């Protein structure tokens, strides 16, 4: 049996004696006899550390680790600089609690303040919080920020990530907000439909840049339409792309959110990831979760604290607009270290290479017989139609160690390339695809 209890059995007995008891059972005397657990539970006996490692390694071994990944759809394989892991595994960061005791938490508080600054820079917004759970919950929390007495409807474009739409819908189901999806047209938001749906009761509209199909939409027009209808404009953005693409701030968004996983986090079968949230100054007090501010101590020394706490659940209780308590602090730190390591030029280079490689992949796949479904400009993902069943292409790729794009239909594949993919890798992948198409067509 494994144990992290420090006291030996003898020490435990001695301590029991000091509190005036004879047995451990007496500590639990308030528990009604009727429901006391009499040890007949089905949990297995404990095992040694070495055995645990063996079992878990075996389980890990039952998963296939792909060395060539061409799939995105909300989770992206980027290169993670070595310094990222080295910094984020420091035990002071890993094993700390939320920095409530500011005097001994200046390191963590400052790291969050730096994170907030970087997120503001990336998104072009005024203020950022310390993070929420992931991109989807960030979008749902952003929608809740927009609600007003006479505005109780949220619109979302069909071109957003399906999980994001689903999570927003679930949150709206929770607090009784009306929720409507704006239809898509040829891979982008149907602007005519959006115009029709933007009634005076619309609190906010959410759209993604780039959208689920990788496409860059007309964010300027959509922002204008939403503001004309006196609603709030929420943009969900890929953080790497923001190094080269127009920011939500430039598009006049009121709130910018996104999935921060591309900023140095592992794929990890879907989590932990990072929800980043930034807003205009006007919406600052509606931001959920923790926010760090700069101040001074009595000696005039620069100091950081959790601030604007009046918004939060531990103070406002049932009147709080969000219940967020624990967030994704270590993931926010990961994102900071990643952005600092890449720097301005590294971030821009990563974004440019994502786009270059995705476009090269797209052209090469076209030569292999696949066709681009939508013609608009895209960032690092794109949707193709396949001349043969998508499954045939993807199975053939899998056999050779390639994780191909995500099948969206029988004959549709959503591809992704990042800076991590090499030209050689793309050429090899295309060869396999070509072969499948020739054999089966």
């Amino acid at each position, binding site marked *: 049996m494994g144990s992290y209890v420090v006291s030996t059995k003898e020490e435990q007995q001695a301590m029991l004696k000091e509190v005036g008891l004879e047995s451990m059972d007496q500590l639990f005397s308030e528990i009604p006899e009727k429901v006391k657990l009499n040890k007949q539970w089905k949990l297995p006996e404990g095992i040694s550390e070495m055995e645990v490692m063996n079992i878990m390694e075996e389980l890990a071994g039952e998963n296939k680790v792909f060395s060539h990944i061409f799939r995105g759809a909300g989770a992206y394989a980027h290169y993670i600089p070595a310094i990222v892991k080295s910094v984020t595994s420091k035990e002071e960061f890993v094993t700390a609690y939320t920095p409530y005791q500011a005097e001994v938490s200046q390191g963590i508080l400052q790291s969050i303040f730096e994170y907030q600054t970087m997120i503001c820079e990336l998104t072009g917004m005024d203020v950022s919080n310390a993070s929420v759970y992931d991109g989807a919950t960030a979008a749902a929390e952003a929608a809740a920020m927009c609600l007003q007495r006479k505005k109780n409807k949220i619109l979302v474009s069909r071109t957003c990530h399906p999980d994001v739409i689903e999570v927003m819908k679930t949150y709206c189901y929770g607090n009784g907000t009306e929720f409507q999806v704006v239809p898509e047209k040829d891979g982008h938001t149907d602007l005519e439909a959006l115009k029709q749906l933007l009634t005076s009761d619309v609190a906010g509209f959410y759209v993604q840049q780039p959208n689920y199909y990788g496409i860059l939409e007309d964010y300027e027009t959509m922002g204008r339409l939403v503001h004309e209808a006196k609603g709030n404009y929420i943009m969900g953005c890929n953080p790497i792309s923001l190094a080269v693409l127009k920011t939500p701030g430039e598009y006049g968004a009121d709130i910018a959110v996104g999935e921060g996983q591309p900023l140095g986090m592992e794929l990890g079968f879907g989590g932990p990831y990072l929800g980043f949230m930034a807003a205009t100054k006007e919406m600052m*007090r509606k931001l959920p979760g923790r926010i760090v501010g700069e101040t001074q101590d009595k000696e005039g020394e620069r100091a950081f604290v959790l601030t*604007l*706490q*009046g918004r939060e659940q531990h*103070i*406002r209780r049932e*009147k709080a607009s969000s219940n967020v308590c624990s967030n994704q602090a270590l993931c926010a730190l990961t994102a900071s270290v990643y952005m600092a390591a890449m720097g301005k030029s590294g971030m821009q280079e990563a974004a440019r290479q994502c786009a270059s490689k995705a476009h090269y992949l797209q052209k090469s796949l076209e030569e292999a017989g696949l066709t681009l479904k939508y013609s608009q400009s895209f960032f690092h993902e794109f949707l193709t139609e396949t001349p043969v069943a998508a499954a045939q292409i993807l199975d053939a790729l899998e056999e050779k160690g390639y994780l191909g794009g995500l099948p969206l239909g029988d004959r549709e594949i959503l591809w992704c390339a990042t800076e991590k993919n090499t030209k050689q890798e793309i050429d090899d992948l295309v060869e396999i695809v070509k072969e499948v198409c020739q054999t089966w067509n």
Partner: protein
Amino acid sequence: MNCPNDLRYTNSHEWVRQDGDSVLVGITDFAQDALGDLVFVNLPEVGDEVEVGEVFADVESVKAVSDIYSPVTGVVKEINEELIENPEKINVDPYGAWLIRVEKVTETEDCMTPDQYREFLENQE
């Protein structure tokens, strides 16, 4: 505690001042002292209806949020915008830093006179 003679008071520590055909509402010196350093004030919007005994605003200190109850029923004519940037005005000058001006007052709570309020405070302690 400072309780000016020209005001009326509630047992939830708001004050009311008749000012022409509208009334001003704020919180008392006792209230600001008990709440400590105020860092933010959440005010209603102009045109909102307020009702006797109902919450119309809240004030935040670093560690607490407290509701402010309306002593009158009417319509908010004006809010004290200055407080949004400088909530500390309430701590410095609670009787100058009114929160809202209410017009079309149809009902007023049975408020205390300054003497009654002083007595009320003494009994509280």
